C-alpha cells in the first residue's frame, strides 16, 4: 500500500472516529441509566420473552413425542390384526372349556331364549359378542365335544 493510500485510510478512520461524537456528547447518560433500570424493573415483557423463547423448544419436543407414539401405535395396529383374533378366540375357548357341564347348560339355555338365525361363522372371523344366539350355541356345543 503506497503512502497516499495510507494517508487516505488514516483520514477515513479519523472521520469515522468523529462520526456520532456529537450524538454521544448530547446523550444524558445518567438519565438513560435510570430509564433503563426503571424499564427493567417495571416492564413484565422480559418474562414473556423468556417463555416465548423456551416454548418453541418444548413444543418441538412434544411434537416429536406425538409423532413417535403415533408411529408406534400405527405399527402395532398393522401387526396385530393377523395375530390377535386367534389369541382372543383361544382365550374365549379356554374360558368356556373351564365351565362345568351344568354351567354350560345354563349358558345354552339363556342363549336359546334369545333365539335368532343360525349361520355358519368361524370363531376367528368375529368376536363372541358379535355372534348370534344360534352361532354361539353351535360354538358351545362344539366345545362341549
Amino acid at each position, binding site marked *: 500500500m503506497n503512502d497516499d493510500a495510507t494517508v*487516505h*485510510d488514516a483520514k*477515513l*478512520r479519523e*472521520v*469515522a*472516529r*468523529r*462520526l*456520532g*461524537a*456529537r*450524538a*454521544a*456528547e*448530547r*446523550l*444524558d*447518560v*445518567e438519565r*438513560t*441509566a*435510570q*430509564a*433503563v*433500570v426503571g*424499564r*427493567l*424493573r417495571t*416492564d413484565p*415483557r*422480559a418474562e414473556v*420473552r*423468556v417463555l416465548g423463547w423456551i416454548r418453541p423448544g418444548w413444543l418441538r419436543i412434544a411434537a416429536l413425542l406425538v409423532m413417535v407414539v403415533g408411529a408406534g401405535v400405527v405399527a402395532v395396529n398393522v401387526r396385530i390384526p393377523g395375530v390377535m383374533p386367534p389369541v382372543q378366540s383361544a382365550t374365549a375357548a379356554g374360558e368356556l372349556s373351564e365351565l362345568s357341564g351344568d354351567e354350560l347348560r345354563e349358558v345354552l339355555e339363556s342363549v336359546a331364549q334369545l333365539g335368532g338365525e343360525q349361520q355358519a361363522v368361524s370363531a376367528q372371523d368375529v368376536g363372541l359378542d358379535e355372534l348370534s344366539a344360534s352361532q354361539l350355541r353351535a360354538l358351545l356345543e362344539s366345545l362341549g365335544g
Partner: protein
Amino acid sequence: MPPAEPLAAVPTDAALIAAWHGGDEPAAAELVRRHARALARFLAGAGALEADVDDLVQETFIRAFRALGRFRGQCQFRTWLMTIGGNVLKDAHRRSRRAHVVPLGDDLRDTDGDPHEQAVADEAEQRLAVGLEGLTRLQREVFLLRAQQGLEYEEIAAALGTTSGAARVHYHHAVKRLKEHMK
C-alpha cells in the same frame, strides 16, 4: 511486611453482569453508564438520527439485559451490545421507513473553532455517513467496529459470528467503496 496490593476498585463488566443476574439494579445502571456513549456513537455512525439516539440506546440496553442469559462472553460486552444495537436500528428503520441521514440543522452544529474547518469536517462526516448507507449491513458494522471503535478483527468476528478473515475482507471492501464515495 510487603505492601498490600491495591484493591480492584473498578468492577469488570463480567462482575457487573453477575451482580445484575443476582438482582443488583445499580450494577445494571453502571453498565449503562460505562457503555452508553460508545453505543450512541456507533448507532449515530450506523445511520441513526441524532434525535432518535437516546431511545435507541435505551432499547438496545433493554434487549441486551433481557438476553444476557445467552451472552457467553464470546466477545466483550460492549461489542456484543453494538451488534444488538445494529438489530435495534434495523428494526427502527423498518418501522419508520424514513431516511437514515438528514442534513444537520444549524442548531445542531458545533459552533466552536474555526467555522471553515468545522464546515469541512461536517461535510466529510456527511459524505461518510451517506457512503456508509450504501454499504451492506455487515460491511457497515465491520467498518464502524474497526475504524470507529478500534476493535481487532478477532473481536469483531466473534461478535458477528464470522471469521476474522471474513471480517477483514468486509472491512477492505467497505474502505474501498467509501474511498470512492469520498473522492
